């Protein structure tokens, strides 16, 4: 069984990699398996974790959980063409609750916390400690302050980007570009580490060429 599983994993891995040559039946087969298996996987996980674990086992202790279950059932009504519009109710619940939760959470974590973290003394390591920051720290603080401010100016589209405002926005673009470059570098590295992992599996676990 273990050997079969290993060969199956290798077969599917090579099937996906074969797409680098061109779209072919081996890749299509692997892709079709992936779609079916992953859909089944998530349905099962959510059934046992959320439905059984969070609802079924606790429905006696907490009757309010029935609200979630009833809303979930209403969502299924989407399959009935004549009364499908009722499925908008759970959707409206999700939209309203997400809006209410996110409004407060994002305001706190993305706006207040980030602004607070940016408003720092430029020439000292803390408030009331005098001019004790090193040259490198001062440069770093200035970069963060200028970068955040000009980046925000760039994202302000209610005013035309001309004159001093436009020049400030232009500086912001440079910071945004560096951020995109860094994010891109990280993304490539993460994909490469996944690829190395698969090659390691093929040459090590499967073929035994790497010990």
């Amino acid at each position, binding site marked *: 069984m273990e050997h079969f599983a290993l060969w199956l994993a290798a077969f599917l891995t090579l099937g996906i990699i074969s797409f680098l040559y061109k779209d072919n039946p081996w890749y299509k087969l692997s892709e079709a398996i992936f779609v079916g298996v992953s*859909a*089944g996987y998530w349905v099962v996980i959510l059934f046992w974790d959320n439905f059984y674990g969070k609802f079924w086992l606790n429905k006696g202790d907490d009757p309010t959980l029935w609200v*979630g279950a009833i809303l979930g059932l209403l969502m299924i009504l989407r399959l009935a063409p004549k009364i499908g519009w009722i499925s908008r109710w759970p*959707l409206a619940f999700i939209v309203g609750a997400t809006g209410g939760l996110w409004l407060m959470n994002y305001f706190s974590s993305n706006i207040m916390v980030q602004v607070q973290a940016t408003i720092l003394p430029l020439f000292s390591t803390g408030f009331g400690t005098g001019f004790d920051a090193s040259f490198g720290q001062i440069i770093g603080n200035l970069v963060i302050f200028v970068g955040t401010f000009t980046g925000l100016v760039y994202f302000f589209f209610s005013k035309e980007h001309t004159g001093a405002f436009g020049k400030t926005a232009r500086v912001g673009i440079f910071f945004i570009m560096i951020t995109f*470059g*860094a994010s891109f570098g990280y993304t490539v590295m993460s994909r490469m580490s996944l690829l190395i992992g698969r090659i390691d599996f093929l040459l090590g676990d499967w073929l035994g060429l790497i010990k």
Partner: protein
Amino acid sequence: MKRQVPLFITFFVGTLLILSVFIPPMENLGENFTLFFDIIAVFAFFLGGGNLLRVHFKKLSKKKRDWQYSIVTICGFFFMLAAGLFKIGNPGDIASSVTAEGSLFQTIYTNMFVPLGSTMYALLGFFVASASYRAFRAKNREATILLIAAFIILLGRTPFGTMLTVWIPDSMSIAQIPNLAIWIMNSFNLAGQRAILIGIGLGVVSMSLRLILGVERTYLGDDSA
């Protein structure tokens, strides 16, 4: 009825959750509602699974192009569903975890789901490299900056980057590529990320208000539904 009730539900639930932050007896409301989300998500996934079957059975019945692969998808779906819902091969009884070591569900996960998923993502590495070759030609100042930043970060995370600048003395350590990469991440990148995060925060706040107040109604679709 078709539009007014959902708009009222959105307004009521959204307002209730905003108020719950300020009223101590209601502060757990957010957690309760998150629990409801989790339960609703199960039904949404059932709906998604049903839709997947509908699409593939339709493809199969009409013998559309590549219909044979739909059989594989449907079989894969039911196979995984049976393995997980009936806990086939689980070492414990029905109360044991579905992901218990040795179960058929876990075996499929380890030997099919994980290899397929990670290879699919690894494949993106090639496409990202090929797309970046085309997009990253230093055509203007902005593209050049992006290219240099990405290049330094990439080099800084590899032993080759360390090897290239190991000869630079410690007094000039900032010029060593790994240190330069860290400095870019902690200053320039941080500043840009903060601007983006604050922008996203403002966007989410305004969109949430639009939804709660019923200005944004596109999620309701059209009345023919």
